[in-house]
């Protein structure tokens, strides 16, 4: 079976990935994604159907929660050196981000 990713699906995937796709690269992306999809056809085999998926290879792990330890915090100045916008020793969103976040918290953002 030869699968081809449609432009609609490609744009939907880009939306999910929070990416804007350049027009001139659409064809190449379409072709590479279709190649991947065709290669993945072999994952549809019936012999896998009832198998429990394996999501991690961690063996013998007991996942014992670590005990809390009191340590000094990261240096605020050093943490904040990675942002251009800061206010009162905190990260600062620019205004559009602040308003979007406020709306999101009050349930207005779709």
């Amino acid at each position: 079976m030869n699968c081809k990713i449609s432009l609609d699906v490609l744009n939907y995937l880009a939306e999910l990935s929070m990416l804007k796709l350049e027009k001139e690269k659409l064809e190449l992306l379409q072709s590479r994604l279709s190649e991947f999809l065709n290669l993945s056809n072999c994952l549809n085999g019936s012999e896998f159907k009832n198998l429990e998926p394996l999501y991690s290879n961690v063996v013998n792990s007991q996942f014992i929660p670590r005990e809390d330890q009191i340590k000094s915090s990261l240096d605020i100045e050093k943490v904040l050196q990675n942002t251009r916008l800061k206010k009162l020793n905190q990260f600062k969103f620019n205004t559009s981000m602040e308003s979007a976040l406020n709306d999101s918290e009050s349930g207005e953002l779709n």
Partner: protein
Amino acid sequence: MKTKNVSSVELTEECLKNALRSKNNTYISLLNDSAVLRAKKADEEIHQNGTMTLLHGIPFSLKDLFITKGIRTTAGSKMLFNYIPPYESFVAQSLLDAGGILIGKTNLDEFGMGATNETSAFGPVLNPLDPKKSPGGSSGGSAVSIIEESSYFSMGTDTGGSIRLPANYCGLVGYRPSYGRVSRYGQIAFSSSLDQAAPIAQCVLDIACIMELISTKDRRDETNLELGKLDLVSNLLSLDLKYIQGKKIGLSEHLLDECEEDVKIEMLKALAHFKKMGAELVPISLPHLKESLPAYYAISSGEASSNLARYTGSLFGLQKSNHELTSAHLKDHYFEQCKTNRTSGFGDEVKFRLLIGALSLLPEKGESLFKKASQVRRLVCQDFELAFSHCDFIFSPVSRTVASDLNSSISFETDSKNDFYNVPASLAGLPALALPFGKGKNNLPTGFQLISKALSDSELLKIGHAFELSLGRDVV
């Protein structure tokens, strides 16, 4: 250094000189002054108390995927071009605590996604053995730093072969430890269930020295196992050639068929050498190799799409869009800004993997590709379990070819073929040791890998060291 024939400062200055002279685009950040200062300190300590560890005063490089406190860490991406971490990764801390001298942060495929070291936002790394060839990826800069003698060893990472392929293309020893053996704390995540810190060096004994230092329990990584200290170096030093005798080396039927003729010839020579040294060659079956590759891409890209969701440019990283917008109706601009930052910050390969990731996580008739791939992953593990009931180690090529040409691949198929031999061990979380052996086309190095049972790192390094001894290599 112990006998004072050479000082750490001399070694460090020589490495820095070689790094500055290099035209291979090996480093993203070079630590000139701080490296020399550290070396001076190491010399003083050695003068007063002798060497603290086997790596005390030894210059090394670090893939720029490991967080380093106060030193820019980019992951080879424009997205993090100016990121200066406020904390230290486990691996960096362990090597610095052992007295190692960090020379610089090496170039890599962006976020570790690539097999040729061409996807870096800082340009491709060139293979010093032939500048028109790739050094392999994604830890290409790490491999090249050793070849050009700007470091004595390097720490890279291996998700689907990222240390084994560069080792193979450059004629070095690359080691992917068992999953869970080394803490991933502070290692920038690509695919959390597959990523492993992985050393690269000139010989297995060097790898053992590094592994001893970084195989300690770190509670900050939940997947890091409590396994006790590895006592590798003394074990290796007391080893002789007889270690190979009677060992069962498994070879899957038709495995070598994918290799080009020059590589295949060297693989057969390596197998013949094992036989000559007393090993028994055993036929095994790994029936799901074909499915491993798409399963790997579905899983690694699915995990990447989650891990890289944090890079929006809203708090740190590239902030391309920085308008102070005031109008309340522009609330959607938050996501627009994230999109602008991500589109500008990520390179083409990362974007492609994110799209694969989104695709593999989409439910189709209630089942995602990610889930199907994870089912295949279980089968691959079962295949290995069964194979190891017949043999001690599994033999496999690392690559179908010698070092590939730069600018040669654009299709998914050609790109992914570089990973064909490497992803099965990654999916199963098994340790794999890539060893150089022979020369192929254009006199470029070839090599093979040995894979062993999960957590049998010690046995794997022993047979690798014994193999080197059997070739009469100078390994000390």
